[in-house]
């Protein structure tokens, strides 16, 4: 699914200014309240270092509506960003001391390894290959392949709706979602269209050449948001992609700290509020925080 994401960055980059405003000013008061000095961390830990420096660098995406999108005001906004803000608060760092750097999919491991970012929260799927280079806290969200249909369509309820062979679906060339959906199709030649970017799929869906578009729900949410009232997501996601928070390999204390913080966010409503202020604007199914994997 990496390929998908790289291939669609350009498309997604153009996406809505409508969501740019999301999540911006909602948690203003939370930041400095606890005060930097009231936090106590183990000596020599990453937490103490960050708290002392009163600064944290967070890598995120600048082109992922709903999760991390940098709008015209120059501040990234989205669910990933909200999680980052909450973590900074836990570290006793005020919101305005967070520095965001852009981490497109291809460079995320490098950014962590070279210490350019303290943590990376960037629709970052946890997998074993990446675990060889960095460590993951979380997951804090489980994304997955989903189906987008026209808003008035009730005939498609999930990938199984394609098994009858009369529904047509669009995805992007050479992407994992395109391969995955093939297993649900009765006749590939009759049912599958692939373009080079998702925008073309959305056009084909709008004009009725296809009945559905499929890829990661995160990308689809962007299209739903931009084309208000035109599209919707159908059914449930049918693959799992656990999103984690990337940090330097071997920093177990920091990882445990983030994991504990995430569990706290699940419980105290921070998580739910973060979702509702951002991605929840186009997907009202507020996720329950997935179980933390303390590997």
């Amino acid at each position: 699914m990496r390929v998908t994401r790289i291939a669609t960055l350009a498309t997604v980059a153009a996406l809505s200014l409508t969501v740019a405003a999301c999540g911006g000013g909602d948690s203003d008061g939370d930041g400095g309240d606890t005060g930097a000095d009231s936090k106590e961390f183990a000596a020599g830990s990453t937490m103490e270092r960050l708290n002392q420096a009163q600064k944290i660098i967070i890598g995120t995406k600048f082109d992922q509506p709903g999760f991390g999108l940098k709008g015209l005001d120059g501040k990234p906004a989205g669910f990933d960003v909200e999680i980052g803000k909450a973590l900074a608060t836990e570290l006793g760092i005020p919101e305005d001391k967070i520095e965001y750097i852009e981490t497109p999919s291809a460079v995320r491991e490098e950014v962590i390894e070279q210490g350019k970012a303290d943590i990376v929260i960037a629709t970052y799927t946890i997998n074993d290959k990446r675990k060889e280079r960095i460590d993951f806290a979380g997951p804090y969200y489980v994304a997955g392949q989903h189906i987008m249909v026209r808003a008035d369509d009730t005939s498609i309820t999930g990938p199984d709706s394609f098994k009858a062979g009369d529904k047509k679906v669009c995805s992007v060339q050479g992407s994992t979602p395109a391969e995955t959906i093939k297993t649900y199709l009765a006749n590939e030649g009759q049912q599958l269209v692939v373009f080079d970017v998702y925008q073309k799929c959305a056009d084909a869906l709008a004009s009725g050449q296809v009945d559905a578009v499929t890829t990661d729900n995160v990308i689809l949410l962007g299209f739903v948001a931009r084309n208000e009232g035109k599209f919707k997501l159908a059914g449930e996601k049918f693959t799992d992609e656990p999103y984690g928070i990337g940090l330097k390999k071997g920093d177990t204390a920091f990882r445990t700290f983030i994991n504990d913080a995430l569990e706290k966010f699940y419980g105290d409503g921070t998580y739910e509020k973060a979702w509702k202020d951002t991605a929840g604007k186009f997907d009202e199914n507020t996720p329950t925080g997935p179980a933390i994997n303390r590997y």
Partner: protein
Amino acid sequence: MSVLVEHFDVFVGGFWLTFQLCVLAAIGALILGTIVAVMRISPVPPLRWIGTAYVTVFRNCPLTIVFFFAAFGLPALGSNADFLRIPGLSSIFSRLGIDLPYFRFAIIALSVYTAAFVCEAIRSGINAVPPGQAEAARAIGLTFSQNLRLVVLPQAWKSAIVPLGSVIIAMIKNSALAGFFGLTGDLSNSAQNLTSAGGEPIIPVFIGIGIGYLIMTVPFGLFLDRVERRRAVAAR
């Protein structure tokens, strides 16, 4: 190079679909191109203007633009190119009859674009027919269409064979663009799938795809050489 063996079926499937596309688009381009050529030399000025405008527009537009308007402009106008779902033809070329219109859109884009070049190739052939032929035909009382049908076009075709061949070969190569405008499973689209999602090495895959196109174009070129040689002998 093992990818060529392991995914042989993918290459064959891609080749077959591209081949079908090329045959149908070539037929369309030859018919449409001949019509436009006739319009360009017709005695009726408005027809001449239409013919000239057609050639000017499509010869000078990038094929990508033409493809774009076929794949996204036609649906916007409410057409799925269903007129191409010709019953008999659809049973041979199975992609033609199915609900997904992108195979038909690709045929339209390629035909319409190539027709402009076909028209000019035929016009060059017509220009190569000695004027005395047409004058003699007029002198014995043939109408314009009889003149064209019986005297000029048969001779024009002959001298247009070689330029027409180049035009069709260019069209076969241009057909690779169809894979980027919604046609699933043709040669270029198969290459994309194998390298991106399939994780296959790029170079052997593209060698395989290249071979696929060569299988279509090289024999066609050799055939044209033969035709030309025979024509030269006949003319002597």
